[in-house]
């Protein structure tokens, strides 16, 4: 039997966007090191429900719990998605924490991601950026050419895929001191610009998306690369350089 773990949790509680939030302290005992971070919060919520003392259970976003939907968030001990690299919060396990440790849990912190409740934030600004141009304007009726008529060099296909793996979680924004969304936007811009299908609209796309990103109040990139470190999908800041190039070229 593995040794069970106890923790002190300092969790950000906030009723809604208008009211002020604050940290509350909770104790949770006998957590298996194999339990995921969210399963630990499930147990805490059950404890709150059964004790009827800590008020309402803690609200946090999650769905797939497989590291792919991008729904979970959480700023854990000052890191987006917690201390481990290349994973989302739902894939973080308690074996990475010490017995007795105090863990700070906060929502994503960014003006463009307003708080809805407790640890849940509103990331619809990301959707609006995609709406502004994050697509290839092909109709969906299937009257296209055979897939193999568009051969794509493997290295481009692979790079486009790597950029395409962004899950839109927003960790890059939360990790950045400027609250910049450059990593997210550059991933999408690069994915399409690297593929022949997406090249035709590349100028319009990058201009519109960057414009929207600024309108939504995201900050600028100052190359601190915190986004890359906390991105669960390992999206490289090289895509930001790629996007900058695309952006400049779009004026030529």
């Amino acid at each position, binding site marked *: 039997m593995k040794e069970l773990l106890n923790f002190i949790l300092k969790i950000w509680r906030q009723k809604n966007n208008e009211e002020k939030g604050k940290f509350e302290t909770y104790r949770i005992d006998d957590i298996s090191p194999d339990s995921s971070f969210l399963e630990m919060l499930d147990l805490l919520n059950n404890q709150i429900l059964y004790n009827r003392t800590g008020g309402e259970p803690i609200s946090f976003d999650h769905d797939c*719990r497989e590291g792919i939907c991008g729904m979970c968030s959480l700023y854990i001990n000052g890191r987006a998605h917690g201390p481990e690299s290349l994973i989302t919060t739902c894939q973080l396990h308690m074996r990475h924490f010490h017995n007795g440790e105090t863990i700070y849990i906060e929502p994503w912190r960014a003006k463009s991601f307003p708080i809805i409740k407790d640890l849940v934030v509103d990331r619809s600004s990301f959707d609006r950026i995609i*709406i502004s141009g994050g697509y290839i304007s092909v109709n*969906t009726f299937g009257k296209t050419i055979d897939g193999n008529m568009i051969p794509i060099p493997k290295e481009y296909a692979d790079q486009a895929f790597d950029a395409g793996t962004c899950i839109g979680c927003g960790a890059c924004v939360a990790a950045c001191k400027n609250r910049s969304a450059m990593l997210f936007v550059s991933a999408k811009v690069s994915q399409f610009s690297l593929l022949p299908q997406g090249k035709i609209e590349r100028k319009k796309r990058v201009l519109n998306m960057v414009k929207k990103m600024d309108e939504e109040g995201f900050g600028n990139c100052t190359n601190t690369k915190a986004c890359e470190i906390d991105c669960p999908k390992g999206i490289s800041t090289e895509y930001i350089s790629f996007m900058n190039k695309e952006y400049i070229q779009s004026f030529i």
Partner: protein
Amino acid sequence: MIIKNYLKLDSKIPIGPLNHKWINHKSSLKLVSPSNRSNIEIIVVGTGLSGGSVAATLAELGYQVKVFCYQDSPRRAHSVAAQGGINAAKNYKGDNDSVYQLFYDTIKGGDYRSREANVYRLAEISSNIIDQCVAQGVPFARDYAGYLENRSFGGTKVSRTFYAKGQTGQQLLLACYSAMSRQIGKGRIKMYNRYEMLELVVIDGIARGIISRNLVSGEIERYAAHAVIIASGGYGNVFFLSTNAMGSNSSAIWKVHKKGGFFANPCFTQIHPTCIPAHANYQSKLTLMSESLRNDGRIWVPKNIEDAISIRNGEKYPENILEEKRDYYLERRYPSFGNLVPRDVASRAAKERCDKGFGIENNENKEGVFLDFSSSIERYGIEKANELGIKNPSLMEIKRFGEEVIESKYGNLFHMYEKITDKNPYKNPMKIYPAVHYTMGGLWVDYNLMSSIPGCYVIGEANFSDHGANRLGASALMQGLADGYFILPYTIADYLSTYIHNKKELSTNHVEFDKSEKKVKKRILQLISNNGDLSVDFFHRKLGNIMWKYVGMSRDNNGLSKAIKKIQELRDEFWKNIFVPGNIEDGFNSELEKAGRVADFLELGELIAMDALYRKESCGSHFRIENQTKEGESLRDDIHYKHVSIWKYQENKSISEEMMYKENLTFSFVKLQSRSYK
């Protein structure tokens, strides 16, 4: 339950030869002129591959579309989690694949419990889907010449699965989401994120709108439309532990069912053979390891029970078990398909070994088998060394090269496995076990994908139509996109065109909207004001235990009867003893969301067990212990059960009083055979 043998419902399957049915049918469907489309409003519930693709296409055609999803963004629909790939009969690999071959594999894989015409149409459309997705910028895997790559999935002998590493669903969904976003930008789609549909509104027998809850503000809102499309995904979470996302639920389809939508084959659940085994009781879900891993992984347990015990106790490791002491049971039992037998066969075989005590995982039920990549790593390593012209490579070099090849194919899955289990699958074999994955049952639809309520369409995993008793890998994504991009946009016009003639106005003022809204509010109040002691999760887990134990991989008469009783008792207990915190006027309340969903699962669970009890044959993952061959293979009964079981809810009566009808399945183009993968 009352069983009726005939059904007045018209499945609208066109006559004529199989390969002309869809073409002929399309040419007989009525059209809506472009100038009228902008006056027509359509509601889509769900933004997965099916909902997303239909919303984008309908909007493009010029209809006004309202789309609902419970997540914060359409991009998070559960389709995003699909790993392995999507099928299409393109014969790019020259292995003699064809539309007929894909059709045949799918019909046979589904254990001859699906509609021939639907399945053929699916196979016919499959190629088109790939082309469409390529055009949208889906970064499918490519070979060095720049052409599309393929791989193989269980139940087939050809390579027809297109993929984007282990993230195919994500890439396909993002393409759908992009197409939707483009239409949102144009103002033709109005997107309602964090909204949950809680009731279907039916006026004069026709679907006319929905009642939904804004999950942020808590407000109950009314929406009217000329047609309602349900694309809300599967209901596997009735088993609590499953590979589904936590929020996946049956509420939308269940509400349609209770308003008159027939439910078909509820008991057809797919059990996926390659999931990470459950290890503890605090666990909230199970994680899938894509079936594509079976292309390169060999499945085994020790031949000797003592070895299995030592492995479970941590005294021996897989590498201590000599090759001849390993039982590669799939290769042994099914020499021609080996590790690539269909999911139901692989799942049952694993259960059989574990039931006999050969399981290798140290968990409560000692359930788990090895999925071992060492031979592939060696084989690929040698190939790679040859390619690079390295003579006499060392064992270390071979392993390194081999691991690189495996990494390029399954890197993200291996990474995921390691994060969850803390074990490196390149060095140790993976441990896997079957888990609930996909539901083949769902709302009954006709060939036009319309439910038994006119104006209410159902697509994707939410309907029952194409997979029969078992779904082959990589065919759910295909079905979702076929329904959304290429079928419904045509068939729905046929219905809507009659609307234009009837000139029916849209309004949310009708008494049916009042009634439905009242019902929703009453139920929420009932949940929130009930001052019980037990949490929603408690009930959900308990229901899951009953379902897995009695309605899971093997079922028998006694167990199923017991399950029905237990579910009824649990449901009573739920309404007596549930505790949901918060106030009705509060907004965001995850406990309330879960409570509503579990309340629906508690009813659906009973129907699933009833359906399983009635079907006294073994097919797909539905294994009736009473009906098996001497070798322990499943035994179908085509004389008595070659039909779809269709359940009709009786208003204001209990679930146990539902009526069952049959839609007989006719097979004119394939000959029914016992499914052998030997």
